[in-house]
């Protein structure tokens, strides 16, 4: 039997710009066991959520993550609306879908770029991020900000999008789709990408359920589950089927994200096509009294908020469970048996976000 060596992978590592440490036990080059460790930049946002007045928390939860900020605000607002029995105007529901899917699109493009960077495909990395910028520009035009857009509010949305800007969004998405076709061709056909990803980081269907995997990590293991299927916001009025791949490996998870990028473009188009005119928000009075569990689909998977109000302006409890918190546990199953050289790709394949995890 070979001698075992423990190698700390992270918290600072060239492939992972965010702080996670994987304690890897190796026999020669092969991983025997892995244990994720984090907590390097925990911000205590759940505690802060009890100290703020509940409307202020919309701005707080947006700052949990810069990649899916709008979706955090959406989940929180929907939770408060559920407790308080608020019915959101129809147009606001469609606007929520548009901003939510634009966030998903730029998040997946960011990830594709990071994957390319991990392989040393610098040109693909820069090209992907170049047209991701077009999505960020659209966000800026519609909201005045690229990252924290602050358009979601309890009772609806803060801003409308004019017909002129909607046309501009459609034109930009056509351009992004054209670029995406080129990237997809590389990911589907390139020998190196296939060699580095296919059969690497296997997470079987049973393991995905046993470790509570969510999002593309779950759907890449052949399980057709996506919270958007519940029809929250305006998803129930749009044609939507979850993207599923059966490979159970890093490649399957990559393909799910590529196909979901196209799907995000399609959902924005559908939402623009079907969006009714009318009010974008209703006035909300009073304080939340009661509890709710709210779930939405982030780019990385199911996001869960548990909110408990006590009839005052301050919440009794705000619990935030982000997708990476679940998916990090799956590394315990994915890494054993792989070589040390595979670890960066496998860790990236769950699209880890420690801004979310260290909420």
């Amino acid at each position, binding site marked *: 039997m070979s001698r075992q060596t423990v190698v700390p992978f992270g918290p600072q590592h060239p492939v992972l710009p965010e702080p996670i440490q994987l304690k890897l036990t190796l026999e020669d080059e092969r991983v025997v066991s892995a*244990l*994720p*460790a*984090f*907590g390097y930049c*925990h911000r*205590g946002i*759940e*505690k*802060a959520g009890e*100290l703020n007045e509940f409307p202020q928390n919309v701005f707080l939860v947006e700052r949990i993550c810069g990649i899916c900020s709008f979706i955090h605000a959406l989940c929180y607002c929907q939770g408060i609306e559920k407790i308080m029995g608020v019915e959101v105007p129809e147009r606001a529901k469609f606007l929520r879908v548009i901003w939510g899917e634009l966030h998903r699109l730029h998040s997946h493009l960011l990830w594709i770029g990071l994957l390319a960077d991990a392989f040393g495909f610098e040109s693909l990395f820069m090209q992907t991020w170049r047209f991701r910028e077009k999505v960020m520009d659209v966000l800026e035009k519609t909201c005045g900000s690229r990252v924290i857009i602050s358009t979601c509010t309890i009772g609806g949305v803060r801003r409308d999008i004019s017909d002129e800007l909607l046309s501009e969004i459609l034109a930009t998405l056509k351009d992004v789709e054209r670029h995406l076709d080129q990237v997809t061709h590389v990911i589907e056909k390139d020998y190196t990408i296939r060699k580095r990803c296919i059969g690497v980081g296997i997470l079987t269907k049973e393991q995905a*359920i*046993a*470790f*509570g995997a969510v999002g593309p990590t779950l759907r890449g293991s052949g399980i057709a*589950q996506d*919270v958007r*299927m*519940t029809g929250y916001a305006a998803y129930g009025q749009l044609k939507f089927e979850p993207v599923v791949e059966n490979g159970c490996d890093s490649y399957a998870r990559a393909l799910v994200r590529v196909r979901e990028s196209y799907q995000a473009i399609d959902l924005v188009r559908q939402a623009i096509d079907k969006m009714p005119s009318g009010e974008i928000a209703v006035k909300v009075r009073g304080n939340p009294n*009661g*509890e*709710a*569990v709210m*779930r939405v689909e982030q780019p990385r998977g*199911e996001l*869960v908020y*548990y909110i*408990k109000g006590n009839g005052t302006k301050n919440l*009794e*409890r705000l*619990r935030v*469970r982000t997708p990476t*918190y*679940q998916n*990090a*546990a*799956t590394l*315990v199953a994915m890494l054993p048996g792989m070589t040390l050289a595979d670890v960066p790709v496998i860790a990236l394949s769950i699209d880890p976000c420690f801004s979310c995890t260290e909420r």
Partner: protein
Amino acid sequence: MIENERMVTPDELVAEVKKLVDAGYRLATATCVDLGENFEIIYHFDKDLTLQNLRMVFPKDAEVPSITGVYLGAFLIENEMKEMFGAKITGIAIDYGGKLLVTDETLQTPLLKSVQVTSVATSPNGGAQ
């Protein structure tokens, strides 16, 4: 009240979780709430996008069993509840020994109501006090 919830005791917990796991449920998460004298933990299980919630209330000084024996994927969630609230969860399959999210230098059990946090912005060293 949240949808599809039922109360369980600490003695019943593991058996009830096993029933859900055997039926194909996935643990979405668990939420710990400080009720003053007691803790409340709600286990949120999901199958086909429908939640089943197990609610357990127990005294703060009581020990409760880990569910990692029947659902290994709960290890990060249970370690978090142990550190953030000081809940005495015993037998966690992968136990970080109180060092997953907090360290000796940081605030202990910060999510307890009794732990007062003034203002992050105004604390002398820039961190929570």
